[in-house]
């Protein structure tokens, strides 16, 4: 397993190089630069802006700029945010915990809903309950996330007033206190449900279908033939087998959650890296955009690696 992990990590290097080229090119291809929109060209001396561009290296040949960027990144220097005038790592580090908190909450909601509904449906396929769950899920997956988010804000925040419509915390609470954490959970529930519902549909239907398929397997019949209770057959024998393909979903999910958070966080004005990404694109904050894209790419790769390693844990037939 260790050898396999090392091999996989090494094989990530060429991918990361490729990603860095794409990320850099995309950033360069975006029209404008940090001075666009930030500085009023009518009030500022254009020569001064040109001078600044020269000083910051924006006029150097692309290859030189790329080499400079990569060298810095490899040394852990991701540059300075042009908007916040702080190192990028610091800006991201401030926001990252919020996003991780949101992603984990969403994942928990997804798992609770998907396992409850999937196990219910899988055991009673083609019944009224199963059809109801399927309808709910397919409707859920068909409605775009931003609509779900806006509708959720309208009903639960404005009409019913159950949840706040934005933010991640009420200002002025003592960090680490009980009230601080309950307030954070209170703020994260609505965006987490919106984000979690998105993956719930695919998880549920996949789990349901896999349970239905597994329930026809020979090993189920032989378990029945030795007098095993129906609940044990479903909750132990079948579920243990049906969890295996869900691991693949987990791999994609890491990236999907962070990616999905871009929309959700923006709508809920939840200060995580998703919202930071959108803001940075608007302000042409290259260093932040590039670093975040790198982080997203890296998370996708890491998610897949974790999924592959998890296979070895949940499926005894797979050994690395």
């Amino acid at each position, binding site marked *: 397993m260790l050898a396999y992990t090392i091999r996989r990590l090494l094989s990530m290097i060429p991918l990361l190089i490729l990603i860095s080229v794409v990320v850099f090119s995309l950033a360069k291809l975006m029209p404008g630069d940090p001075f666009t929109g930030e500085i009023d060209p009518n009030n500022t001396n254009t020569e001064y802006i040109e001078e600044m561009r020269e000083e910051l290296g924006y006029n150097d040949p692309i290859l030189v700029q790329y080499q400079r960027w990569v060298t810095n990144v490899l040394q852990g220097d991701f540059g300075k945010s042009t908007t916040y005038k702080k190192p990028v790592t610091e800006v991201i580090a401030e926001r990252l915990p919020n996003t991780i908190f949101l992603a984990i909450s969403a994942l928990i909601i997804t798992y609770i809903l998907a396992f409850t509904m999937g196990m219910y449906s899988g055991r009673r396929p083609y019944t009224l309950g199963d059809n109801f769950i399927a309808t709910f899920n397919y409707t859920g997956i068909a409605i775009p996330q931003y609509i779900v988010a806006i509708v959720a804000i309208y009903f639960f925040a404005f009409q019913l007033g159950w949840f706040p419509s934005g933010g991640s915390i009420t200002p002025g609470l003592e960090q680490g206190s009980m009230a601080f954490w309950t307030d954070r959970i209170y703020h994260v529930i609505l965006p987490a449900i919106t984000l979690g519902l998105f993956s719930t549909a695919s998880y549920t239907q996949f789990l349901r279908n896999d349970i239905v398929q597994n329930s026809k397997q*020979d090993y189920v019949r*032989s*378990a029945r033939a030795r007098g095993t209770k129906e609940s044990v057959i479903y909750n132990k024998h079948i579920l243990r087998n049906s969890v295996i393909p869900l691991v693949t979903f987990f791999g994609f999910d890491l990236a999907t959650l962070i990616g999905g958070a871009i929309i959700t966080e923006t709508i809920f004005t939840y200060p995580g890296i998703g919202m930071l990404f959108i803001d940075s694109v608007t302000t042409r904050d290259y260093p932040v955009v590039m670093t975040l894209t790198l982080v997203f790419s890296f998370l996708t790769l890491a998610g897949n690696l974790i999924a592959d390693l998890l296979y070895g844990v949940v499926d005894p037939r797979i050994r690395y």
Partner: protein
Amino acid sequence: MPQEQHDQNVLDINNLHTGFLIDGELHHAVVDVNLSVKPKEVVCVVGESGCGKSVMSLSIMNLLPKINSKISKGEIIFNGEDLTQKTDEEMNKVRGKDISMIFQEPMTALNPVFTVGSQLQEVLFNHTDMSKQEARERGIDLLKQVGIPRPEKIIDEYPHQLSGGMRQRIMIAISIALNPKLLIADEPTTALDVTVQAQILELMKAIQEKEDMAIMLITHDLGVVAEMADKVIVMYAGKIVETANVVDLFTEPKHPYTKSMISSIPRMDEQKNKLNTIDGIVPSLKNMPHVGCRFADRCPKAFDDCTKITPQLAKVSDDHEARCLLYDACYPDTSSIEKEEVNQ
């Protein structure tokens, strides 16, 4: 049958009808099956694919999918109780303890994600209060009994690490774990290669003699029948067509179907260019003839009556029953005509 003898039987199946719902209609795959299994007896049920052998055995275990099948008539008496009347929870107490079953496909009969030991111990935990340690020891002991080398190691291995023959041995170990009175084996050797087949049959025979259990062996291999059986039941298209002890069946087969099957066995002492076969296939459930002998259109000896009169199972000589109009005893009396109407 005298009451006394009846009581001694391990299993009595009376007038069993099992059907499948196809497009909302019930079609019977097993019709009017009557049979009994005595203690320590090996009863072989033979017939082609689609003859209702497996459906009958699954009916005994009540393992047929409830959604599209049901036992519409008859009783299955085991231990003085009618198994067809039992709920699933009640059947769970019988399955694996008093009656156990092994299946055709050892490669898929074990759950791939649990160790051999955990599946073996499951049957013990289902029916006894054994502790983990006791169950493990009993498990190792059982693996030893079925001839598994290094049982202490194999018990912690996963099914994919073992060969087909080994897995079938493990299935046998699971099925004999609680000394059942009856073991139903549904083509246990079909998926195994020939040398392993012989080993598995020998093992079953040895265990049967040691543990005093009865075996109902379902097979389409007459070689297996000759080796194992005390009594043979030949089924065709859901009905029993002949019942005899093993010697009589091979020396004096009565039903044309049995005769054709026996003549289809390749023999080493005969020089033949072409192997005998039975033309045609078993009619499907939906195309089953309602009147007449179900074998009539494939039968070399069919005559006019065969498609018009439904034969009944009757004694054609001592301890030998057949269902064929070549024997006068098989012409139906009025009561069995009524019986036939139920099946339509």
